[in-house]
């Protein structure tokens, strides 16, 4: 009598509602499983690589030259070569990429010009890396007569990584509020003055992120440098930072991993694994830096 009947409780779960809830939890579980499926192999592979590489991971690996037909010794020439390639491609791609993004976002008014450039950027990003290699061979090695050289390889890398810089710079420019620009124009500044004083400083962290991602991409690429300037082996003084000239070929970490694992017979398995771990370490560290820059600016943003 004083207990309410079950059927009158308005919050009681209906049959259909319970079915929905069960379906919902099952779907959630399945989706979480799919996501785990994505991450678990990665973790397993990384752990396996680490274990495999452990016997060869010594400090001497970084600072020595390869010896005994690359079966022993370290990675120094490849490491310096990667620094050269990445640094040079950065020097070429950053000014062009940032300026291109500024044009795209701040200058281009005609929508069809904008659209054509946009499409070109997307396609440039989508061109396969081996086609970039063909382009580098045809344009820089033979066309511009640079020969197989550090210069030709880094120019090829610069072309390939340009879209990375353009896209991220453009996004960070878009994140600067239009009212900032208008305020600056209203006190009589020209377009370039506005850019230099207001827009670029505010967009700097985003631009930096793009540049860092470019570094990571350039450091890991193999195909574009395979036929433009990377070489299997080159003897340099261990510890020498200025080991290469721009008109000669160089070694590179990514290329070295490819060579070690497919072209050199009788390598103990720890050595290529250790090379992979070093390359992976470089790339992931650089990416972590990009993530850090981004999350810091997100929490420090003043608008």
């Amino acid at each position, binding site marked *: 009598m004083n207990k309410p009947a079950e059927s009158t409780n308005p919050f009681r779960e209906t049959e259909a509602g319970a079915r929905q809830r069960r379906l919902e939890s099952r779907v959630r579980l399945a989706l979480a499983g*799919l996501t785990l499926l994505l991450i678990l192999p*990665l973790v397993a592979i990384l752990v396996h690589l680490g274990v495999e590489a452990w016997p060869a991971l010594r400090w001497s690996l970084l600072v020595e030259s390869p010896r005994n037909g690359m079966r022993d010794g370290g990675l120094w020439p490849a490491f310096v070569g990667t620094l050269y390639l990445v640094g040079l491609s950065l020097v070429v791609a950053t000014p062009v990429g940032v300026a291109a993004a500024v*044009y795209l976002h701040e200058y*281009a008014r005609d929508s069809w010009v904008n659209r054509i450039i946009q499409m070109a950027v997307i396609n440039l990003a989508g061109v396969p890396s081996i086609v970039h290699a063909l382009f580098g061979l045809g344009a820089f090695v033979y066309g511009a007569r640079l020969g197989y050289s550090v210069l030709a390889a880094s120019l090829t890398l610069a072309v390939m990584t340009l879209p990375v810089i353009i896209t991220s710079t453009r996004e960070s420019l878009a994140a600067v509020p239009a009212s900032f620009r208008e305020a600056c124009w209203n006190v009589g500044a020209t377009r370039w003055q506005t850019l230099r004083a207001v827009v670029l400083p505010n967009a700097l962290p985003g631009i930096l992120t793009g540049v860092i991602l470019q570094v990571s991409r350039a450091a890991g690429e193999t*195909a574009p440098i395979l036929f433009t300037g990377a070489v299997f082996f080159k003897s340099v003084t261990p510890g020498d930072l200025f080991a290469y000239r721009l008109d000669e070929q160089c070694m590179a970490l990514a290329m070295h*991993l490819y060579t070690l694992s497919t072209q050199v017979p009788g390598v103990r398995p720890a050595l290529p694994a250790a090379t992979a771990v070093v390359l992976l370490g470089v790339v992931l560290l650089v990416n972590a830096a990009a993530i850090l820059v981004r999350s810091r600016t997100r929490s420090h943003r003043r608008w």
Partner: protein
Amino acid sequence: MKPRSLLPSRWRSRWIRCSETLIEAWIRISGFSSVFLVLAILFFIFREAFPVLSRPGFSLTEFLGSVEWYPTSAQRVRYGALGLLVGTASVTGVSLLISVPAGLGAAIFLSEFCTGRTRETLKVVIELLAAIPSVVWGFIGLTVMSQVLRWATPAAVGVNLLNGALILSLMSLPVIVSLTEDALRSVPDAHREAAEALGATRWQLTWRVLLPGARHGILAAVLLGTGRAVGETMAVLMATGNAVNLPTSLLDPVRTLTANIAAELGEAPAGSEHYRVLFLTGVLLFGITLVINLLAEWLVRGGRKGR
């Protein structure tokens, strides 16, 4: 206090105007750099490939219709790229069978079913997954995955179609996940709120509202994942076994267009017929990815316009 300059003010203003003009010219020129570069890529690979089309021993129908790829044969050199095309198509197709369901599932989970710290962590992991260089993936295929496959399947060699497809699916997953997530996020909040107000559960909301609303973006994500898989070079070079043939099972070795260029360009003397045919396969690759990318761009644009 007035700001002082070393130059008289008339000169100073002229200097400012001059440098500004120069900088703006640089910005304008750079603005068209990507257009210029795409055309330059097209020009240079065509320039190297074109002379072969008029060579007497070369026929385009053989190039596109034959599986006989013997570029260095002593008796009769044959350039039939069909085997390479089929290789690319089969590896890409099998990898999509894995990466599309997994990628969509992960993207839905990321954007609709988890929040806060889990979400941020997962996004970082996916970003790092995208950063792993292709040569490292190739190395993984060559060593880890091939051992797994030899243990799990009756395959005699571990480097084959399935290995390449598994590696490729792991590589294109981050692209598919992040772009699909963007597409789901771009469905207007009003649609979301309307569904929730009607009492829809998360899953009903996803299935009936978000997926149909984001279908253009999702298709574009799948296409861009396909583009990435088609263009991937080092990973497939090291993981697929590199034998030119028409695969009849998942455990057959294959060779893709990209891997073929990477494997043979080093041995083809510059200007030779073989060298030019390799550039021709480059033109083919460029064409395929161009179509895929334009299609994806058109879909994204169409999706935005339809709203």
